């Protein structure tokens, strides 16, 4: 196990190196200049040149790269041009809202998925199974932004049950935080639950055709026990992968939800950084997201062996 983790850490360093290096040169090759964005259209060429120099954006690119790489190795990801703060501090300030959304919505979706699929597996011919079959398609087809606008219109503007937008850190004021989280989390849960459910149903269908079930039935094991003890744990493995990857993609990918519900998360921060050509911040956020992807993948792989001890992580 220790070897596996060490190997993965080696891979993580490699991934971050490739992502960081590619991004560094990519950002500097696209049109757009942070100095121009800061100083506006009326800045003189001299003023722009001076600011570029102050920001470390002049000189050969390889020199800039080596400087950046040297700093990153020592844990210094630079200073955000827009926020005037260390990149890691900006990420730290904005990761909590995104993590709150991602963790809450993923956890609720996962539990709902297990409950729904379990019910459908135990009683495959009842109305729940049939309803789930259709509802998942519907849930997948609903565009998130549309659903978000709809729930705001119905539950916030008309019924007044929840605020239209806003974010309060949960531990700072749970009473204010929970109502603000209900609508954005609900929107995410609908799409995610549909996605997880379809994935898990596929797994269940695959397991149901396995010969070992025939043996189990021949030994007199009940259908309920077959479903709960044998089918569902095995069908869970692909769901874990899906949940893991989906969670990682939520970290940088809930821009629409963050925008509509005015949640100051990492997605909108990254988007703003791109518009402002805040190179250090873009690089830092993207590398952080890459780190999360690798870390979550490792976590999922390790969880595999817990769910099914026969699985060995390579």
């Amino acid at each position, binding site marked *: 196990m220790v070897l596996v983790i060490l190997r993965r850490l080696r891979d993580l360093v490699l991934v971050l190196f490739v992502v960081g290096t590619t991004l560094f040169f990519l950002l500097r090759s696209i*049109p757009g200049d942070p100095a121009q964005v800061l100083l*506006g259209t009326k*800045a003189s060429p001299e003023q722009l040149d001076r600011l570029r120099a102050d920001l470390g954006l002049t000189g050969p690119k390889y020199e800039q790269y080596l400087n950046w790489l040297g700093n990153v190795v020592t844990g210094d990801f630079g200073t955000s*041009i827009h926020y005037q703060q260390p990149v890691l501090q900006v990420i730290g300030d904005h990761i909590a809202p995104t993590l709150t959304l991602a963790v809450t919505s993923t956890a609720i979706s996962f539990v709902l998925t297990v409950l729904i699929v379990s019910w459908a597996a135990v009683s495959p011919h009842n109305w729940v199974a049939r309803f789930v079959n259709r509802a998942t398609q519907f849930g997948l087809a609903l565009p998130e932004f549309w659903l978000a606008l709809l729930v705001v219109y119905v539950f916030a*503007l008309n019924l007044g049950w929840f605020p239209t937008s806003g974010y309060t850190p949960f531990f700072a004021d749970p009473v204010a935080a929970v109502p603000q989280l209900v609508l954005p989390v609900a929107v995410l849960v609908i799409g995610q639950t549909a996605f997880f459910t379809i994935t898990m149903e596929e797994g269940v269908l695959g397991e149901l055709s396995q010969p070992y079930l025939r043996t189990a039935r021949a030994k007199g094991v009940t259908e309920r026990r077959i479903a709960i003890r044998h089918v569902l744990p095995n069908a869970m493995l692909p769901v874990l992968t899906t949940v893991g990857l989906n969670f990682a993609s939520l970290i940088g990918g809930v821009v629409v939800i963050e*925008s509509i519900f005015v949640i100051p998360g990492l997605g909108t921060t990254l988007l*703003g950084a791109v518009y402002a050509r805040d190179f250090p911040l873009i690089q830092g956020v993207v590398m952080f997201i890459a780190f999360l992807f690798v870390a979550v993948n490792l976590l999922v792989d390790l969880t595999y062996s817990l769910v099914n001890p026969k699985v060995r992580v390579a």
Partner: protein
Amino acid sequence: MIRDTPLNQQLPSRRHRKRQLPRRILAATAAVLVAAGLASACNSQATGTNDGADGPPVKGGNLTVRIAQDPGSLDAVKNTNAGVSYISHEVFEQLVTIDKNYQPQPVLAESYQKSDDGLAFTFTLRQGVTFSDGTPLKAADVVASLKYWVENGSYAGSLKPVLKDVTAKDDATVEVSLKRPFNLIALMAASAGSEIHKAADIAASGPTGIPNDRIVGTGPYKVKSWTRGQQIVLERNTNYKPPKGPSSGYAGAKRAFLDTITYKIVADEDAVLNGLKTGLWDVAEPSHDQYDQIKSDAQLKIKVEAAANVQYVALNHNSGSIFSKPQARDAMNMLIDKKAIMAAQGVPELTQPSNGAFATLTNKNLYSDAGKAKWEQNDPEQAKQMFAAAGLRPDQTIRMITTDEFPQFKDALLVIQNQLKKIGIKSSIESYDFATLMGRKNNKPNSWDVLALMDDGNPPVPSYTDNVNGLDNSGYPRDKLAPLLEAYDRAKTPEEAKKAVDAIQGFTSQNLPTITLYMAKNYVAHRPNVGGYDGWGMEFADVWIKK
């Protein structure tokens, strides 16, 4: 009132901004917000007045104001984000600033004098003024601030070659000496970058400006807290010493009724409207799309600003463009139906004809109709002949570029494209985020013909606006423009200044650095609990919350 605001971060005075963020998001998700800011270059003159209907002022309470993006810093010199000037003018003061009629008025200066030859300005500082931390204001602070502004501020660019020195004669007197006459007071008054900081804070400034832990000014409010990406809270500055005279625009004595002003950072336009309706914030600048909806809501009030942004298309004078030829520029002017483009915006209350002027009708000092007759020309058939005479080949495509951060620009280009198509001329439209657009304009100066943008309808001096200065790198005859701008700077009487403005307007009309399309007004919506708000842009130092 928004000043020193780059186009990428300006709140657009137009109806389509409602969809700005979703469009951005779609574009960004396909590729990867800005502002802001992105935000209007619109100086504002209040049409609304506080006529006493709000009852007597009440001290206390919090006003929540929505802004489009976290400004990053409050250094108005090195950060031209609109949010900076929104907030910084509550925190900082200038030697002189503009009143609601755009006239310069002393604030930190008790008085100022211009030498007979126009080469020296002497400012006498108001006595007893302190910064919010209790440090007395001294001439050294003013000297450091003005030098910092001239050296680094993009809007002070026209002053830099003219400036000889800024010196402190004593603790209360500052002299600015010039190499030639220049309209210093107008530029200083209208530029947020000329705000006065402590000399020690200027000395601590880094590449992107004065650090945020050194936001110390002499204004009616000071920064209480700043939660990145969420909100900035100001609180009353108990050390504030107001200037004399009633509050007017940014000038006059501010009474600071509010305990706090909270600026909520909200980019999404739908969220802005929803928050206004449900009371999450008290004041916002919604999009033009939402104007009718807000107007019909009895719970919300609207103040339409009298001033406006100038929406324009710049013509590329560089040799690689057909518009390097004067006949082609005249042909384009003859072709474009400016009033049709204005009508297409769909909100008549918020638009008005530009008449070809680089300043709004309400700006009596700078408005000139010297180019009106040419601006009103519109004859597609004649335009077709003029394009042919200019040498436009049948297979030649007119390349139009703009930014998708302000959809009204692309709307205008689509109308122009249709008008070009009707006379058999091919054209293309490419739309980018602001940074990419500027990159293309600067790095590939011959790769475009027409560029749609907007600029401040109340420039402090004529040279300040793209509609006088042009946008291209080399082809525009600035050498011939320079003496006209200098004549304006040398003007000793309003009549001389007006004559100079007419000459400048005549020059731009003849050379067409841009073709102005229309003026777009901004508006502010607020909840009925807001008292004393006169509609002067986003200035709230004299506002109170009604009980």
